[in-house]
């Protein structure tokens, strides 16, 4: 089976994010860039599917849109076990417009003819939660989003589980299809030393999509830290004394009871 994983390079979830002087982007200084964590789940699942089908079978391709630096993230994916990488180089790319990116990804995916496309459920920088699903629409394929369990009763027929409010949905689908990965799908592996060595020799191809990057449908007007809430009132003392005071305030001041 030929599996393609869409991967975005994003600032580490541990990084402290500071808004840049122009108030329209973040300050990249000292911000470590990583493989989007949900895309790691997607990649891990792709590798497991390939491995389950046996030695020498199938291929796992990593595809990304972004600047030159993204090659580092692609290299980490190759070290985990992906076979090759594809970069659509776009230095200006910021990623606010999910549908625009999805159109580019779909265009490149068509040339690769994979059986299955795996994406993350969301990229932790722009938090759009839309690219994978939009890719499926552009390809005219079915999609299943927020998947936290994926089984293969038959070679080309899968059964996925996704979390919904108050329960879970079980979904059956055939290939080709797009799946977006939620936390819980698997535990991604660490790259082995051997994997890191091998990754150096695996190819990363730069491609130019046949469609131009569409004019952004969404633009960033400004960025700011979340609004300060300003610490409120703090109460210390015996519960019997302070709790009634707080409850009275909840009723009379905050009016939430």
């Amino acid at each position: 089976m030929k599996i393609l994983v869409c991967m975005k390079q994003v600032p580490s979830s541990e990084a402290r994010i500071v808004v840049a002087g122009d108030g329209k982007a973040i300050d990249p200084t000292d911000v470590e860039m990583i493989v989007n964590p949900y895309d790691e789940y997607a990649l891990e699942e792709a590798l497991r599917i390939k491995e389950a089908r046996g030695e020498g079978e199938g291929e796992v391709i990593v595809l990304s849109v972004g600047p030159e630096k993204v090659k580092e993230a692609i290299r980490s994916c190759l070290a985990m076990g992906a076979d090759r990488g594809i970069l659509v180089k776009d230095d200006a790319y910021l990623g606010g417009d999910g549908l625009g990116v999805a159109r580019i990804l779909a265009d490149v995916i068509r040339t690769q003819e994979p059986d299955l496309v795996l994406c993350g459920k969301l990229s932790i920088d722009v938090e759009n939660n839309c690219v994978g699903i939009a890719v499926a629409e552009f390809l005219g394929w079915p999609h299943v989003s927020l998947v936290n369990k994926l089984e293969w009763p038959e070679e080309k027929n899968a059964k996925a589980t996704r979390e919904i409010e108050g329960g879970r949905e079980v979904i059956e689908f055939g290939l080709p299809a797009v799946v977006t990965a939620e936390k819980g799908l698997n535990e991604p592996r660490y790259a082995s030393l051997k994997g890191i060595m091998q990754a150096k020799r695996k190819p990363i191809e730069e491609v130019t999509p046949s469609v131009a990057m569409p004019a952004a449908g969404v633009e960033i007007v400004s960025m700011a830290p979340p609004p300060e809430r300003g610490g409120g009132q703090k109460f210390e003392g015996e519960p019997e004394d302070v709790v009634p005071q707080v409850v009275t305030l909840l009723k009379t001041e905050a009016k939430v009871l």
Partner: protein
Amino acid sequence: MAGRILVFAEQRDGKVRKSTFEALGRAAELGDEVHAVLVGSAVAQIAPMLGNYGAKVVHCAEDPSFELYSGEGYAAALSAAIDAAAPDLVLVIATAMGKDLAPRAAARKQLCMLSDCITLDEIGGAFEATKSMYGGQVFAKVRATGKPVLATLRPSAYPAPEPSSDTAAMESLSVAVSEVGAKVVEVLKQEEGALDVQEADVVVTGGRGLKSPENFHLIEELAGVLGGAVGASRAAVDAGWIDHAHQVGQTGKAISPKLYIAVGVSGAIQHLAGMRTAKCIVAVNKDADAPIFSIADYGIVGDLFKIMPVLTEEIRKARD
């Protein structure tokens, strides 16, 4: 003012999701005329009541294949409604269903998409939203450069309006139904009747400070008294004390309830990302320097095991 606004009315088992009313309310504030679209196997009878919340016309797409949600099927129905209503703005609630449906429909109809909006306004003729980025460390203002726009609204971002006695006109929608490639074959309900954290006006959340899964009863009791939902920090979820569906935060759910009570939760930045937009925050923690106090409106410093029984009792009395 925005012209016509189309709201996707989310229903499961014939029950309209509460957040739909919030979207209808915001649509009525933003637009001249509000339409809604209902998709299901037999939903016409619930259409008129959407008028109570401001919908003038409800486009109904009924088909046996719409009994259970499917991204492809519902996207076809929503697209047909977009053709019929020709709106400037389509509003979808950012629930599991809405997040799945919206990108598919937006891609199909070539709309500009604003996702998971915490606020949504029309400024100088363009739709502008506030959204969380970078795990809640940044609030960004984003603008759609064209129209029509499809926006998903975070649940509880806007209040549901008081219902009126107005009813909506029903128009049936014909949708070319075709075989879907990804089909829901089963819906497994969990904890029948348990309120979802994204639906609830009040959320009481337990963290590692509870020390064991049994102690979650302290959280459940207070949530019960308040008619609210039970939330959890990632530490409580990772310890296996409670299901991930309850997790609030960057890797859980982002919520904006009227009242959020955090108990034995330190207030890590990834937790704050999911609840900082709550209208009123109460924290109970024995560590006076816990970061949660920096955003709490009312902080109670002390041992939760002593505080919770008193708090639950006092709130019970206050609500009587």
